[in-house]
């Protein structure tokens, strides 16, 4: 195996070396012949020069005024390239960062201009500019080079700038704003949401500011997942943990809902207030979720196909939102069952009714089937999002659940 690989390597090297020789040989030939006298070139172009002569070079230097043209090229190159770099990087920055229709069209125009052949411009170009510019004008040449080069270099810069995350711009703008002095009030506050999502370069950029904030500046970083913050950032902050809402808070917030319902809401939404409000607005019959779930599980357990089909008819008439809510509620309940199986009941988030059901139902949920069940439920949520037929979906799901509940655990824990 190894010898085969090295043989392949040898072949590649041989091919590569031959090609490299072929690519370089013309230069070599020209160089060798430039050192020859004229008759020698004509007689044997491949041989080494017999009397080496530098006459040709000398003649070229004097007759062509080589250095003058070299200076011209140098001046034009230096000026047009440096101006192009400045202009096109600025233009590309503007076009990449300003997401408006006009900037999109300007960019498209620049790109499209790259397929315009020079020949299509050459003749009117002459006619337009000949009256204004003498053709020996270096400044004019620099100007034209910029005009012809700006499209390509802007295109390249645009591609590059688009890969730089905008957060870096934001960090830079924070830095800039904080470099101003407080004017009207004593304090200013920088509020950063979800700092754990900050990318590494940005985090490092802000690090110095966080370490030594300018006078009268307070940073508040609001994170839902402080463990994912950079340790260097955490060490510069005071951590303040804000606990979840408890059920009483929720009752107080919504007003006029029962404690039981609040608990359930909290359980379904992981104490996310936004989701709670949404659910509250969308459906009033939250408590029914439990009834529905327990009824479904009983039907599935009894393998009552007629009952299942009636149940499916009922749920498929509900809205998609309700179906999704139901499925995510089912996932939560499966989770509760597992917790009851493996840990003590103090970790449960259920209310009394649910608890009563779960304590009877949990023996059927174990490490073997819970994964499958949850996967299947999640898949169903996705399918509902994609407009699946609810009747077919729920019927199939129920039949699968029948199967899952029959799965025996391989070994007993207790």
């Amino acid at each position, binding site marked *: 195996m190894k010898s085969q690989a090295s043989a392949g390597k040898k072949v590649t090297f041989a091919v590569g070396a031959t090609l*490299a020789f072929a690519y370089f040989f013309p230069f070599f030939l020209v160089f060798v012949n430039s050192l020859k006298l004229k008759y020698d070139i004509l007689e044997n172009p491949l041989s080494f020069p017999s009397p080496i002569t530098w006459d040709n070079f000398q003649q070229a230097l004097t007759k062509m005024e080589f250095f003058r043209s070299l200076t011209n090229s140098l001046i034009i190159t230096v000026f047009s390239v440096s101006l192009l770099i400045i202009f096109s990087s600025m233009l590309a920055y503007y076009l990449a960062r300003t997401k408006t229709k006009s900037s999109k069209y300007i960019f498209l125009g620049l790109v499209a201009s790259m397929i315009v052949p020079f020949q299509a411009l050459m003749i009117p170009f002459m006619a337009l500019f000949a009256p204004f510019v003498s053709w020996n004008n270096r400044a004019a040449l620099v100007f034209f080079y910029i005009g012809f080069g700006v499209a390509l270099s802007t295109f390249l810069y645009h591609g590059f700038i688009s890969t730089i995350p905008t957060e870096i711009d934001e960090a830079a703008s924070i830095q800039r704003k904080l470099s101003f002095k407080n004017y009207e009030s004593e304090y200013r506050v920088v509020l950063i949401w979800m700092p754990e999502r900050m990318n590494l370069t940005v985090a490092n950029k802000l690090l110095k500011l966080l370490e030594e904030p300018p006078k009268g500046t307070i940073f508040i970083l609001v994170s839902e997942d402080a463990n994912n913050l950079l340790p260097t950032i955490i060490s510069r902050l005071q951590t303040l943990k804000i606990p979840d809402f408890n059920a009483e808070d929720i009752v107080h917030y919504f007003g006029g809902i029962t404690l039981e319902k609040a608990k359930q809401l909290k359980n379904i939404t992981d104490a996310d207030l936004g989701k709670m409000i949404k659910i509250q607005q969308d459906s009033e019959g939250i408590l029914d979720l439990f009834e529905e779930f327990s009824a479904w599980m009983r039907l599935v357990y009894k393998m009552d196909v007629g009952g299942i089909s009636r149940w499916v008819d009922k749920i498929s008439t509900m809205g998609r939102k309700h179906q999704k809510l139901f499925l995510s509620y089912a996932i939560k309940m499966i989770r509760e069952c597992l917790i009851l199986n493996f840990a003590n009941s103090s970790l449960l988030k259920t209310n009394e009714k649910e608890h009563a059901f779960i304590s009877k139902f949990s023996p059927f949920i174990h490490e073997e089937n819970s994964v499958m069940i949850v996967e299947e439920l999640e898949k169903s949520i996705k399918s509902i999002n994609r407009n699946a037929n609810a009747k077919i979906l729920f019927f199939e799901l129920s039949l699968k659940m029948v199967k899952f509940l029959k799965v025996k655990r391989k070994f007993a824990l207790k």
Partner: protein
Amino acid sequence: MIFLKAVKEARVISARKTKKFLKFAGLPLAIFTIVLVVPFVNGFYYTFTDWNGFKTTKLIGFSNYADSFADPKFWSTLKFTALFVVVSLVLVNVVAFGLALIVTSKLRSRNILRTFFFVPNLIGGVVLGVIWQFIFNSALVTLANKYDWELFKQSWLQDTNKAFWALIIVTVWQSSGYMMIIYITGLVSIENDVLEASQIDGASPLRTLFSIKIPLMAQAFTIALFLTLRGGFMAYDVNVALTGGGPFRTTELISLHIFQDAFGEGNFGTGQSKAVIMFIVVALAALVQVTISKRYEVQR
């Protein structure tokens, strides 16, 4: 009152936006417009007039285009250019991809090889043309007469068919190094885990090349094909320096033909209309090529 305040605020914001636009984009866009857009639009307009390079007297409709199409030389040039574009497109990309494969293999000499392949690109087309003119006209002919090689006894540049291949050889030699760089970036951007996975699955090197590397770097092909297509249509300096269009203007590519028509014979009107036709042909060809090769690109 509130309404007036809002209007004022909106005005301030839009003024700020305009200021930013002018600061960042004003100058380059102005230069771009003067150098490219104005001549382009103007040139389009000229094709409908009796322009003779200095002044226009009246609009003459499509007769410039009619004259262009009636010119048999234009048709033969177009055909020659199309052939040149197709052959050079295929050869340049095949060679360049091969070079890229060699250079990205695990050879220890890959960096120096890469330099060798790229060198022809560092030198302008005119110089390359002169170098190869020397090779075709004197070096090879002298050698052929000395050692009796039938193929090279007469200079290749004196014969239309052979001059075509001379053009192709020089073009491939010149631009394959550049396209190689594009293919290298494509090859390097393929994640190693994909290649490792294919190796574990037992794919042969050839299979890996065709089923994994090429589909994953299709974007590099799109770019390289586009650039060679455009380069083929616009080839000018190698053409001038190597064959100068000869023998008897049979190896003129479209760019050189337009130049000769306008500045050599003073037919500015037809020259410009031929240039517009060329632009349309290039744009259509590029559009077709890009749409087709985009279809083969894989989203990662």
